[in-house]
């Protein structure tokens, strides 16, 4: 198992390097750089621009810049912020990444908390009204984009009903242990709408998967055997079928992580949450070269690690799988 994890991580190195080169080239080959204008939008004098580019090493040949950048990243330095003095990308990431993770993890938790029971309920009550309702709701939940859910929630729950604030994240840095929010009432009130917006799609996806997977298991021979030997139905479902049914659900959880990524950027923008996704979009606009590359790299890292974690849990749930020999 350990060798498998190590091999997988090693194999993803070229992916990271390729992604780094790709984003580096895309943003560097563009016609205009970060120092074309002042903060107010006026053009910057030619010699000032050149001096700034020299100060950040942007006047060197591209391959040299890329080499330096890779070495720099290896040592844990993500580079400077270009348009804000005395601020590094590391500092920006340290304050914004925890917020993005808090949002993502809470939405994931909500999605599982709703999706799993709903899926199990639908499968156990197969082809009954409850199943149809759950399935219909799940299709709707999967289909409606985050982009389109948010306006409804904001309009009806925040503006008309005034139950929740319309914007901002309730917890600011410094975080507890560097990444945990303080779970105060104010924090939960602020977090509710963004987490629900993002969580609806996840819960619907999880519910659909759980239902399909559990139905397939309930059709298997070992379930018939379990029933035949007189086991209580709840024991059959929860002890026998559900454990096996969870395997595909867990495997796709990594994919779900990928799927919520664009949604989480949208949610951060809509609710003015100072997370990494929002900073990435702003950085693309203001040509913060180093922040763009770093955040794309970090997001990809999360996705790759998420997929890896899914594979590891998959192996743990299914003892028939042995990594390392055949894979």
């Amino acid at each position, binding site marked *: 198992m350990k060798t498998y994890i190590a091999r997988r991580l090693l194999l993803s190195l070229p992916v990271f390097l390729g*992604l780094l080169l790709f984003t580096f080239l895309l943003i560097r080959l563009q016609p205009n750089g970060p120092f074309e204008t002042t903060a107010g939008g006026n053009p910057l004098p030619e010699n000032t621009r050149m001096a700034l580019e020299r100060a950040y090493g942007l006047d060197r040949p591209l391959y040299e810049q890329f080499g330096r950048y890779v070495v720099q990243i290896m040592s844990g330095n993500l580079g400077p912020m270009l348009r804000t003095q005395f601020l590094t990308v590391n500092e920006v990431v340290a304050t914004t990444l925890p917020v993005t993770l808090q949002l993502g993890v809470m939405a994931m938790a909500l999605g599982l908390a709703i999706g799993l029971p709903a899926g199990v309920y639908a499968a156990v009550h197969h082809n009954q009204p409850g199943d149809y309702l759950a399935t219909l709701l799940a*299709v709707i939940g999967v289909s409606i984009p985050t982009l389109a859910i948010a*306006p*409804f929630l904001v309009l009806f729950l925040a503006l008309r009903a005034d139950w929740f604030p319309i914007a901002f994240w309730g917890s600011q840095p410094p975080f507890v242990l560097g990444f945990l929010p303080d779970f105060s009432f104010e924090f939960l009130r602020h977090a509710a709408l963004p987490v629900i917006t993002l969580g609806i799609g996840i819960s619907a996806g999880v519910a659909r998967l759980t239902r399909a997977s559990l139905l397939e298991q309930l059709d298997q021979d070992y379930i018939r055997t379990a029933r035949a030997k007189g086991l209580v139905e709840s024991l059959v479902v929860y002890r026998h079928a559900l454990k096996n049914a969870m395997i595909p659900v867990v495997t796709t959880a990594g994919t779900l992580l990928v799927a919520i990524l664009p949604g989480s950027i949208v949610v951060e923008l809509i609710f003015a949450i100072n997370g990494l996704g929002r900073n990435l979009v702003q950085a693309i606009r203001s040509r913060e070269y180093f922040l763009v590359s770093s955040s794309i790299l970090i997001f990809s890292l999360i996705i790759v690690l998420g997929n890896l974690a899914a594979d590891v849990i998959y192996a743990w749930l299914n003892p028939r799988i042995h990594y390392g020999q055949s894979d």
Partner: protein
Amino acid sequence: MANRTDIVSSDEPVQRRRSGALTSFRRNLAAMLALVFILLVAVLAVGADWLTPYDPAITHSAARGLPPMTAYEPSDFDLNRCHWLETPLEPLGCRRFLLGSGISGADIYSQTVYGGRTSILVALVASLTSLTIGIAYGTVAGFTGGNTDELMMRLVDFLYALPVFMVALGIQSFFQFSFMAQEGWLKILTEWNNRLGGLLFLFIAIGAVNWVAMARMSRALVHAAKRTEYVESARAVGASDGRILMRHLLPNVIGPLVIVETLAIPGYIFLEATLSFLGLGVGPTGMSWGSMINAGYSAIRSYPHVILVPSIALSLLTLAFNFAGDGLRDAVDPRQR
């Protein structure tokens, strides 16, 4: 990567149940309703120039943020720009806003129809490019086998590991800021992009990333089908490689691939809307539900219809494509139900 579950199991022969599938699809009420809705949006998209009263970019300075169906007295200047002038539709379109007017006084109905055109075009072009490139690449790899196959699929594995949204975001951000390019190939591309209402760049970004999954799947199917008896017998009677590929293999693998592609369409629509929402989708000349939602957000309290109309339209279209795709899959492969 070995344990990603394939949606189509490749070890079973593709069965032809066309007539049964059609009946099954027709009986699926949700799928039929969805299909009707998609056709409606498609008709509006094709005939947008005649089926909307105004050009979506036109604003009426005297009529900002009017709620749906509000009648208003247009100035002669506004009236002269109405496409429905002196037709039976004049009182409906020129003297009132069917779905209200936007913050700057644009006709929301016209904007929504043109935004729908973008969504339908993206769905169509993205799925066609994904199918064409993916199937061509995957079939060649699967059919050739050996080292070529190995090499081609290693590249696909690499691309498959890249997060689609991040790549599309990167490509779009590159193009977005190349709009002011003065010379070279970028200028030519930019001119074409403007002619197509900012859609060319979007097609490139979406097409560049979505063929990979299709390539993997078609390679697996072709690879499995290559060893079946009907290919053996075709080879035995002396059919050429090209003939086997085009006449025997492709018709057998294309069905499941099309179904999987149909299920991917909501994702394309969502990707376009999200990119446009972020300001990295259709260019300034284009019209998209994503950018409409973005524009409506600043006035959500005062003019909620401005943001709700494109939100509802986007939800309904992705929902319709999901229902239709599910219906198609159930009709062809009833085991999944």
